[in-house]
């Protein structure tokens, strides 16, 4: 027990050389570009903000319906609609860089070159702390199979990005794989500075009266508390082989949920769907974790991967 831990250092963690004042970030695609939630929560109290996935060019996204609620979760098929990397830098970064929190740009592409180019444009942008590579996207050159489910392809994307930028690189893993450990090893070998997991799990819901899928694209990504047990398991599995820090994601609603991930091996967490339910969830989680750390006289650093055998 570290009885002497100070309030500030109790919550702080370091990932990929970046200091996070606390381990609670908001997840890509669930927190816009930060400003939208400013009226509802104190952005400066977040450990970090991961912005909506960015591509080289603006993308219009998928036709609607794009979301549907499911038991303790939701499916989304947004189609990675975004303003494009240039508008992001010009229109969104000025607000974001003034916040007292880390700003991480989530990026994606349909070819390795796309990824590389988006990353290059973001490298050196003032106020940006890191890149998070979303490898769940279909690889158009490989018949649309996602980069994130083929270890060699994931390796290619990550090496390409890593070799083109100075910013720390976090690789966000897809859960739609047989063995997450293989993916962790592949992207670590490619030089990623950290991994984050999980992205959404592919799912589908049917309107039985109309006999058609409830999402226009038929399938979409499942998120929310429903997937938390799967996410905790994958983080724990990843922690058995990872040599770099892990950021846990999936169904976190409360401090208790966040602590499950940290104890299972995550150095930090991201909160996604819960923002929709309560825009203040992330800040409440920070408060709850702090209360827990005090009660147990410990620090996040000491808690990481502390699951008993």
């Amino acid at each position, binding site marked *: 027990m570290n009885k002497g831990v100070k309030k500030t250092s109790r919550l702080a963690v370091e990932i990929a050389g970046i200091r996070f004042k606390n381990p609670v970030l908001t997840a890509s*695609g*669930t*927190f*816009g570009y930060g400003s*939208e*939630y400013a009226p*509802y*929560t*104190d952005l400066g109290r977040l450990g970090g903000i991961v912005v*909506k996935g960015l591509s080289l060019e*603006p*993308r*219009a*996204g*998928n*036709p*609607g*319906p*794009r*979301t*549907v*609620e499911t*038991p*303790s*979760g*939701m499916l*989304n098929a*947004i189609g990675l*609609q*975004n*303003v*494009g990397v240039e*508008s992001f830098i010009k229109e969104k970064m000025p607000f974001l860089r003034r916040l007292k929190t880390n700003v991480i740009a989530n990026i994606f592409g349909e070819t390795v070159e796309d990824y590389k180019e988006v990353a290059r444009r973001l490298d050196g942008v003032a106020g940006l702390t890191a890149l998070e590579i979303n490898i769940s996207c279909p690889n158009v050159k490989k018949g649309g199979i996602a980069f994130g489910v083929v270890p060699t392809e994931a390796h290619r994307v990550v090496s390409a990005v890593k070799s083109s930028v100075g910013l720390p690189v976090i690789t966000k893993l897809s859960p739609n794989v047989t063995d997450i450990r293989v993916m962790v090893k592949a992207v670590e070998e490619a030089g990623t500075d950290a991994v984050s997991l999980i992205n959404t799990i592919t799912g589908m819901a049917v309107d039985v009266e109309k006999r*058609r899928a409830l999402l*226009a694209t038929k399938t979409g990504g499942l998120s*929310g*508390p429903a997937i938390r047990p799967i996410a905790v398991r994958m983080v724990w599995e990843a922690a058995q082989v990872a040599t770099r820090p892990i950021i846990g994601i999936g169904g976190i*609603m409360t401090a208790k949920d966040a602590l499950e991930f940290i104890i299972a091996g995550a150095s930090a967490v991201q909160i996604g*769907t819960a*923002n*929709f*339910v*309560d*825009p*203040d969830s992330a*800040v409440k989680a920070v408060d709850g974790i702090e209360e827990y750390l005090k009660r147990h006289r410990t620090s996040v650093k000491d808690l990481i991967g502390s699951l008993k055998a």
Partner: protein
Amino acid sequence: MEEKPKKILYNRQASAHYYRMGISWATPTIAPGQFVMVRVTDGLDPLLRRPFGIYNILGPKGKSRGTGIELLYKVVGKGTRILSTRKPGDDIDVIGPLGDGFPYPSGFRKVIMVAGGMGLVPLYLMAKELHGATLLFGARAREETVFIKDFRKFMRNVKVATEDGSYGRKGLVTELLEEEISSGSVIYACGPIGMLKQASAIARRADVKCFVSLERSMACGIGVCLGCAVKSRPHKGSGSGVYRMVCSDGPVFDSADIDWDSFNL
């Protein structure tokens, strides 16, 4: 963030499936047509908030700010069923006011409001502000017409059509619109997509301006999840593509900007 919790003032059954809920809340300025996102339970079922139009502002008459709001809702599924069991005095978690609301009609000869079912809700504050507007209301049957009396209190021109003829004219509200429309009118419409599409076509043919308030299922309500997309007509394409968000770009749109063929009815 810390804010004074909003409380349920009343939650009264108005008829079989319809409720009025008063919420105590020192409201910010509310524009007619705006909505709120309500968390119906602090459990996980249902998980997401539910959107409801702001029907009325409680407090000093005729003001855009007040000491509370009134919602009207219909019990259609589990979220609204749980809402209907909530008790006066309870805290209620409400985010809003959200969205843009209706533009004030300036320079039009006649204001025609067209509502289908709960589409009445976003029109009430507007109707109160305007004098001499016409309300055309469509419903399936008499039991859905319970709130029409609220409008009759201060409106002279209220016409109703029901599909089964149990109240007012037998037929569709769009048939009433065909009769009422005249050049120089402006239309404010809210209701099922099929009805809005029809109203929009009638307006286009008559070369009349038509504003519609749309409903889509919403996860966030504030433009963040990008879930409530509707397709706008190409000439209005924004930097982020041809999709507009009902929650943050709307819910009110100029009907000429909407790609009505994109809806899979």
